[in-house]
């Protein structure tokens, strides 16, 4: 009897283990792409969509009018042709025929008009992307004209991002749109498997017109804020790819993961009070240039970024239309030159400046303080709560501060910090000379525009609006079964950039 009981117990146990195995098994399914995301999704309402990490949530379901390849060149997508008129104030879009949303509604000119106007008026973080569109004229069922307030050099790029995201018109502005997206994209959000905060499951849209661009049958995105959790999930085979940082590279390579990188964010000082209202010294370009020469940027990259970054002198990425190779090395580390400039400006005895202190940049504060002390500049740190930091900076409370800003398309960057009303021109300093250069960039096209963008960058760099230190490598890890093309100017790759390794 005892033998029988032992045998029965063993049999039941083995059966139980057999049942458990598929559930506990790791996700080795080559037809499913499993990603971990650093942040949870905010909303699927097209008026609230975001770029950065969150593109991975909405791009599977919402197709865009244009598509930006990994080098950020605009390619046809839902719009098959895009052409400007002579003065760049009307953008004509010819639309793809035969496309339907997953609720059965047709994609057409009326849908484009409804979406663009909705995104523009939604007051979302990216409403500015179609803010220049005054009117959407329907030429025919499959052709529209975007009539602009003024030429917008960024618009073509924006139509490959949030500005061009197209949802079924019936869902626009509905409460359900935040959680139940209806688009015409390559995938459909599986509501039965998706739980906000836990996982987002996407299954293939059987009617999608461009299936070959998305090789996976299914996508799963799991919000995973903690870096060690993402690494463990990758190493154990639970997920295929995730964002990481420079400190994780050795561990990732040891585990056979592939390290991918692109450069998006730059860090450095923003010299906000260029008019010298609260710190008169900052109005002198020689003082601002001294701040550029004072920092050992090579040392910062080596020790802070573990060599996963690049020293910069201008606030634009290498691929930017505004990037000017002739500016490389303009502010190579030279503390003697910095002191000399301070002396020439009459500030050899330095000055005092109030800077914000926040946990995110706490490790940089001793470096800033020690470096500026060498120029006899005294820093008074003011504690700022993490959730008040950006608001306080944007409100112009600080004449000088450390910041990390994304560098994307040239016009997005200029818009971010170069105009009087730009958010990161936090003191809203008016600069007519720069405004003239920007106007030229706005009104020209082709090589003339390239040169105008570079000229505006030269003005900003030579007048030391900032003291940029370095571009940071955005690290993205993939397992052996997955390959990916990093997307220039975005911190994580876009869903269409993934493919099975074999």
């Amino acid at each position, binding site marked *: 009897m005892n033998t029988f009981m032992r045998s029965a117990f063993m049999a039941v146990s083995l059966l139980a283990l057999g049942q458990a195995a598929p559930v506990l098994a790791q996700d080795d399914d080559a037809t499913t792409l499993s990603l971990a995301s650093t942040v*949870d999704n905010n909303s699927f309402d097209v008026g609230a969509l975001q770029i950065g990490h969150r593109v991975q949530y909405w791009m599977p379901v919402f197709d865009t009018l244009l598509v930006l390849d990994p080098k950020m060149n605009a390619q046809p997508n839902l719009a098959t042709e895009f052409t400007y008129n002579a003065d760049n104030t009307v953008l004509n879009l010819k639309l793809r025929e035969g496309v339907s949303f997953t609720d059965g509604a047709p994609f057409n000119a009326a849908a484009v008009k409804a979406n663009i106007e909705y995104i523009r008026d939604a007051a979302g973080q990216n409403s500015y992307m179609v803010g220049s569109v005054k009117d959407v004229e329907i030429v025919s069922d499959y052709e529209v004209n975007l009539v602009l307030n003024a030429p917008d050099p960024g618009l073509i790029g924006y139509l490959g991002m949030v500005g061009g995201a197209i949802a079924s018109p019936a869902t626009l502005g509905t409460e359900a749109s935040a959680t139940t997206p209806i688009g015409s994209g390559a995938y459909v959000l599986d509501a039965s498997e998706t739980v906000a905060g836990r996982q987002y499951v996407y299954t293939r849209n059987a009617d999608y017109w461009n299936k070959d661009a998305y090789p996976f049958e299914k996508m799963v995105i799991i919000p995973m804020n903690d870096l060690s*959790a993402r690494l463990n999930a990758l190493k154990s085979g639970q997920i295929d790819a995730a964002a990481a940082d420079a400190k994780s590279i050795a561990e990732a390579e040891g585990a056979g993961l592939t390290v991918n990188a692109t450069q998006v964010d730059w860090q450095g000082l923003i010299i906000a009070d260029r008019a010298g209202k609260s710190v008169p010294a900052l109005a002198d370009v020689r003082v601002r240039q001294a701040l550029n020469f004072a920092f050992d940027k090579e040392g910062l990259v080596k020790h802070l970024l573990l060599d996963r970054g690049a020293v910069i002198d201008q606030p634009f990425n290498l691929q930017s239309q505004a990037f000017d190779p002739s500016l490389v090395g303009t502010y190579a580390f030279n503390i003697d030159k910095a002191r000399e400039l301070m002396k020439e400006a009459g500030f050899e005895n330095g000055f005092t400046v109030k800077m914000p202190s926040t946990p995110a940049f706490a490790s940089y504060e001793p470096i800033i303080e020690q470096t500026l002390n060498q120029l006899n500049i005294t820093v008074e740190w003011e504690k700022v709560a993490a959730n008040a930091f950006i608001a306080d900076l944007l409100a112009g409370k600080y004449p000088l501060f450390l910041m990390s800003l994304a560098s994307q398309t040239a016009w997005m960057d200029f818009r971010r910090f170069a105009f009087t009303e730009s958010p990161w021109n936090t003191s809203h300093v008016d600069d007519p000379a720069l405004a003239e250069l920007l106007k030229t960039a706005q009104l020209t096209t082709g090589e003339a525009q390239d040169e105008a963008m570079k000229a505006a960058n030269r003005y900003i760099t030579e007048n030391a609006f900032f003291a940029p230190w370095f571009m940071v490598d955005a690290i993205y890890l993939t397992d052996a079964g997955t390959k990916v093309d990093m997307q220039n100017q975005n911190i994580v790759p876009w869903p269409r950039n993934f493919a099975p390794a074999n």
Partner: protein
Amino acid sequence: MLGFLLRRLGAAAILVFVLTSLTFVLVFSSAQNAARNILGESASQEQVDALNRELGLDQPLFVQYTTWLGKAVTGNLGKSWTSNEQVASAIANRLPVTLSMVITAITVMTIISVLLGVAAAVYGGWLDRLIQFISVLGFSLPNFWIALILVLTFAVSLRWFPATGYVPLTRSLYGWAGSLALPVAALVVGGIASAAQQVRGAVIDVLEQDYIRTLRARGVSPASILFRHALRNATPPALTVLSLQFIALLSGAVIIERVFAIPGMGSLTVDASLSGDTPVIMGIVIVLVLLVSLVNLLIDLANAWVNPKVRLK
């Protein structure tokens, strides 16, 4: 017994009111930047002001509080500022995850700590010293470190368990057990150490009482003395410790949920705090205070059940 119950419920209601009021003042007084954080850098000041009006943040704090309280007592906890999800829905999605982890942990902890505590108290000698040593060791190891060791060993190296995530019990019993095995193990190690010591002390105290000696003298079997008399009288202090452990496990879940990427209340709390999502923070506070009050009430009732003297106090 009814009077006892009503007194406890009244105390719980006062606790909920006081704590939520204090939390409201603390979090809403620092919420002035919420609109800017939601709308982002490109929004105009007019848009920021409009959202502030929509969220009621332009009102005096007292008005904001009474408005919020009026809705909260009807079960309307508002919407998340960052995701637009209903707060009640966000909590309803995540609370079962944390509760299933914590209830499993407290069950495991109770069983193991009672076994270890009683064994140490009854047998003494080397077994007592060994159990005390293990208890102190478990007490001194931080649970996040234990969690990392467990995940590296059993998930990354051996691949016996998933490294991250949570499988609902309704979907798969084995998946649920597998997804909770490592988090629960990490949570209970420190708690077992503490609870086992308390059980050991309580049992030793009871076993040294005169009536136990009398029972022995009357020839009552050691098993009967232990299970019918000693354990029952050692229960109240053990229950109190376990109720404290339950609350400690809820706190510990914040760290454990991050390490194992478990989408429970802990991760919701961290995300809401970092993003300044005040309605979610308030909802979490209400639910946790209610939960703690409920646990304390149940423990009081259990104590009253096993010890009639408690009911008379």
